[in-house]
């Protein structure tokens, strides 16, 4: 994983416009957050292998970054993205890592199921 280069990620998003894709999106505060700190509200969410075709997609912000994908009837949105896998050719792998390197948020796109 490399720190997000917004220009590179933007062009990778644009290459996926109009394609039938699978997406994985998630956010987590860690499965043990409330166990270690009772003031934390335990929460996480993920969708694995949802289907998406988007007409417009953009990277925004100065880092950490936001990504919004506009679909025919709605949006897919993620905030807090910091890293991407630059060796990928077909897939887009975007993750947000906290200062300890732990994953907080992820948005993945692929023509094939994850």
């Amino acid at each position, binding site marked *: 994983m490399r720190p997000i280069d917004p220009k590179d990620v933007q062009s990778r998003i644009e290459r996926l416009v109009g394609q039938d894709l699978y997406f994985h999106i998630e956010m987590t505060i860690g499965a043990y957050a409330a*166990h270690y700190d009772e003031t934390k509200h335990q929460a996480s969410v993920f969708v694995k292998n949802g289907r998406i075709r988007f007409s417009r997609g953009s990277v925004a912000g100065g880092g950490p970054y936001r990504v919004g994908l506009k679909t025919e009837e709605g949006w897919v949105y993620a905030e807090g993205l910091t*890293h991407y*896998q630059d060796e990928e050719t077909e897939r887009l792998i975007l993750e947000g890592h906290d200062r300890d390197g732990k*994953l907080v948020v992820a948005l993945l796109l692929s023509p094939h199921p994850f």
Partner: protein
Amino acid sequence: MKKILVVLPHPDDEAFGASGTLAMHISRGARVTYACLTLGEMGRNMGFPPFANRVTLPQVRKAELEASCRAIGIQDLRLLGYHDKTLEFEDPDALAGRVGELLEEIRPDLVITFYPGYSVHPDHDACGAAVIRAVGRLPEAERPAIHCMAFSRGCEQALGAPDVVNDVRPYLEQKLGALNAHRSQFRYGTLPARGRLSESEFAEWLGRERFWIYRWPKSGV
């Protein structure tokens, strides 16, 4: 020869609370089958610094689990192919049925899992519940002992003191080998307990493994 079946949901669950105990039993001739229900696909640790990502993590963790089993001496590792975080949403009868197949095949003298309701992570609780359900289907006389790990806040108030406390200090080499095998998940210096506990408490945490013997409700299962 003693046969032990370990049923836990995530690669690394064995390392914290049971690896010393398993190494101890193995050194005395036990044969251990470890059924690991998921590959910990949704773990948020990616290495220190990160070297895995959401897509590569399952295969990374599979290799780490295999290395951990080698360090402990576990002879038989089974990967059951469920998905991290989803065990509580599987059909409980089917999940227990899968565990039941292993009980039938292995006929263990001892089963090690998490105590349902006292193990913090929903996968831990669902895993323990599936094991209890599966063992509960056996005639009472044929049920192996179930030694459960528990670590929720207040679990000792609810369950009493642990029934089995193993001094695993002679097996710390294997235990540290198991812990270090899971290198995407923690470094020795970043173990969660390390920050919370004093040096002596940490040595105690590392050197003793605690289990509660599952007690069947009097009215049956």
